[in-house]
């Protein structure tokens, strides 16, 4: 089966500023694709091209094999979209807004809207103006999911959601996958896509840096590790271990960076009496850097 989303050399210039610089992207049917990158990398630009809100300067994009520009309403009917900044007229209730948007999609059963609202703990009668940012995000999620589209395009979907609702969101994504829907979601937080995505594409400065299965990415991610021992340790034992870099020992505390498997570090640490281990969430910037270093090395060779 052909790709649900495909872009080739997608470029978007905003005056002199480059929004996208030749992006290649492939999203396969039924997969959950995490589109990961720092703010300003071109995630929203890509997404808005896919929805024909903006037009590329050069390169090609297709969704379900159709150029978004040509696809028109028929194509957008198959897509559910949550904007990164979901803004609607604040004077209306979410119920009115969702009913209206449902009509534009050719009608969505009221029960379906109510079911989603209940699951997200959203009061549809409240005026949107009176809602918190998190609650507005829920309205955005309902309108994206309500018509059970074949493709969900979600731009930073969990922004503003509390942890409990993030769990509900993860369930919704899992159900979408089970129902055969394709999900394309952007984020600037690795842990967010790590929990849901099958594959992750990393974008930076308008180009795709790499596309990896999420397990691979997790292995590569550099974590800051801090180990507290009962007694002072010598750094020499840890320097040179596979995946371990930047070893600093300060009395009983060892700090280092760990990429890939934790096994060599853990085995070495186990020779001493360990009081505690702290492993920090991998930092996205550092993850990018590992890819850049590699690319740089490849270029040099």
């Amino acid at each position, binding site marked *: 089966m052909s790709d649900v989303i495909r872009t080739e050399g997608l470029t978007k210039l905003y005056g002199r500023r480059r929004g996208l610089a030749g992006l290649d992207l492939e999203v396969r049917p039924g997969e959950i694709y995490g589109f990961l990158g720092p703010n300003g990398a071109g995630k929203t630009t890509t997404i808005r091209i896919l*929805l024909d*809100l903006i037009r590329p300067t050069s390169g090609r994009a297709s969704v379900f094999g159709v150029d978004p520009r040509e696809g*028109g309403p028929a194509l957008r009917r198959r897509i559910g979209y949550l904007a990164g900044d979901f803004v*609607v*007229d604040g004077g209306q209730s979410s119920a009115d807004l969702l*009913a209206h948007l449902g*009509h*534009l*999609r050719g009608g969505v059963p009221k029960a379906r809207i109510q079911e989603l609202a209940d699951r997200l703990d959203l009061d549809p009668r409240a005026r949107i103006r009176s809602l918190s940012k998190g609650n507005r995000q829920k309205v955005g999620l309902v309108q994206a999911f309500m018509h059970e589209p074949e493709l969900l395009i979600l731009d930073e979907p969990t922004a503003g959601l509390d942890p409990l609702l993030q769990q509900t969101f993860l369930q919704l994504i899992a159900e979408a996958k089970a129902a055969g829907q394709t999900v394309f979601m952007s984020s600037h937080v690795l842990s967010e896509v790590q929990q849901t995505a099958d594959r992750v594409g990393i974008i930076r400065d308008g180009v795709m840096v790499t596309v990896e299965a999420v397990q691979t990415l997790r292995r590569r991610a550099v974590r800051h590790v801090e180990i507290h021992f009962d007694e002072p340790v010598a750094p020499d034992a840890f320097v040179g271990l596979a995946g371990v870099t930047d070893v600093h020992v300060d009395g009983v505390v060892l700090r280092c960076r760990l990429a890939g498997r934790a096994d060599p570090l853990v085995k070495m640490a186990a020779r001493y009496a360990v009081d505690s281990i702290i492993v920090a969430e991998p930092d996205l910037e550092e993850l990018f850097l590992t890819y850049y270093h590699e690319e740089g090395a490849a270029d040099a060779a």
Partner: protein
Amino acid sequence: MLRSVFGKTLWDERRGIVIWSIGIAAVGVMYAAFYPTLNSPEMIQFMEAYPKEIMDAMGITDLTSPEGYLGGTTYGILGPVLTLIFAASLGTRAIAGEEEAGRLDVLLAHPVTRWRVVVERAAALLVALVLAGVVLLLGMTAMAGVAEFSSIGFANLAAASGQLVLLGLFFGSLALAIGAVTGSRGLALGVVAIIGVLTYFGNNLGPSVDWLAWSRDVSPFHYYSGGEPLRNGFQALDSLVLVAASLVLVAIAVLGFSRRDIAI
């Protein structure tokens, strides 16, 4: 009301439509109510003391007849100015205002074409203006006996109110078009204000200033009141010019809006 972009637009604008309709009618009726007071020998003498050029510039020809009085007040300046502001605010909000507020993304990501959004919002603009025109007409009709201008007759009041609606449609479409092509609300409002003022005085001054003789022909105000609908009834040809010009503007709005990027 929530089924289409057209219905939703009217529903969202309902408060403004009601307030403006009542406001325009109230101001129009209030001025009409002064007619018996102003139509006195002393007042006529007083008005005649004003230089003719100033009265011309204000579009006032004679204040003694009811047609002349209403044509210089309710239908001469206040009605058109208020209708123009109402129409321009609706026209700018339709695309540029929504876009600047960041609300267009959600709508346009749905299965609607851009031309449909423009056309349905233009239709909502027309309906809003028609409602305001009907309220004004009802107010003026109710006032006709008391304010001693029943000689004008319902048909001619309806003609003047109807052509006022079309004048509003023209400026509303102009605002819609500039907003749809550029995405800038401020630019749309500014250009409409400038063109409104220039064409207003162009229409009034054209006949008395040699080098401005052409200005009347290009002024929408000429096609609104030049045929004196209060005196002569509905001016089909003038109205057609306003409708055709509005259609051209909406077409420009569709073309410009369909081609460009939507700002975040």
